[in-house]
């Protein structure tokens, strides 16, 4: 009968546990990626990309059907176009939102400015054509007072 030391028994148990754990992990990964053709597990915004958009290394060795190859190309092209369109739409959406926010701010600023501004139409009263209709005596007084204002400055 073989004599087993407690140290060896412990090491064996650890090795068994390690093998079982590795096997369980591999099985789990195979289950997750069973439907995926994406060999690198690349994700987009948290979602795994299912479509294999990469060139197959074994492609050249296979005798491929031209229709199938064409379809594959169209699929890849559609997938990349979809991604580009999504990015573009997102960018447009962000731009539209920031533009709307800017407009809103401008409108509120203008409203505040208008609310605090007193509109004065005095400049319309003192045009040369309207002053021309006044008597010379009145114009003389206005002339003198304006000069006095200038001299006072």
């Amino acid at each position: 009968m073989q004599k087993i030391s407690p140290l060896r028994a412990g090491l064996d148990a650890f090795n068994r546990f390690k093998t079982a754990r590795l096997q369980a992990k591999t099985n789990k990964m195979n289950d997750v990626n069973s439907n995926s053709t994406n060999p690198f597990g690349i994700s987009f915004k948290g979602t795994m990309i299912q479509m294999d958009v990469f060139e197959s290394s074994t492609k050249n060795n296979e005798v491929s059907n031209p229709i199938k190859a064409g379809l594959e190309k169209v699929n890849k092209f559609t997938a990349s176009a979809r991604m580009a369109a999504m990015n573009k739409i997102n960018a447009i959406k962000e731009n539209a939102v920031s533009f709307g926010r800017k407009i809103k701010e401008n409108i509120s600023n203008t409203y505040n400015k208008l609310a605090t501004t007193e509109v004065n139409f005095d400049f319309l009263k003192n045009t040369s054509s309207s002053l021309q209709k006044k008597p010379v005596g009145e114009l003389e007084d206005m002339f003198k007072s304006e000069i006095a204002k200038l001299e006072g400055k």
Partner: protein
Amino acid sequence: MVSRKLNNIIEALGKHTDSDSVRVLNEVGTNCPIDEVRELAAKALIRKNVKESLEIVIKNKGKGINDLSASVAMTAINELLALKDKNCANTVLDETINSECEKEIIDTARSVKALMTFSI
């Protein structure tokens, strides 16, 4: 810097049909210590293009073309040269040259008259 209102008052006096406006421009405008006001008043008097207003800017010492400020004098001369009808201005200049005014005034009038002749 002359205000817009003052500018409009001087312009209105220049275009006014009342002959008393010439007196106001002469008494208040051309005697003002501010160069810019004298310049505008001289311009308004010349644009009136009547004998009384032109005599003020041509025959008087320290006013219009005889102003001590070069810019006022040059503006007045420029305005005289820009007149469409120069007959009245020429008459006043001739009268000034043949009058017994101060030599400086006669010399200035003669120079302006020469410029007027060349500018036609």
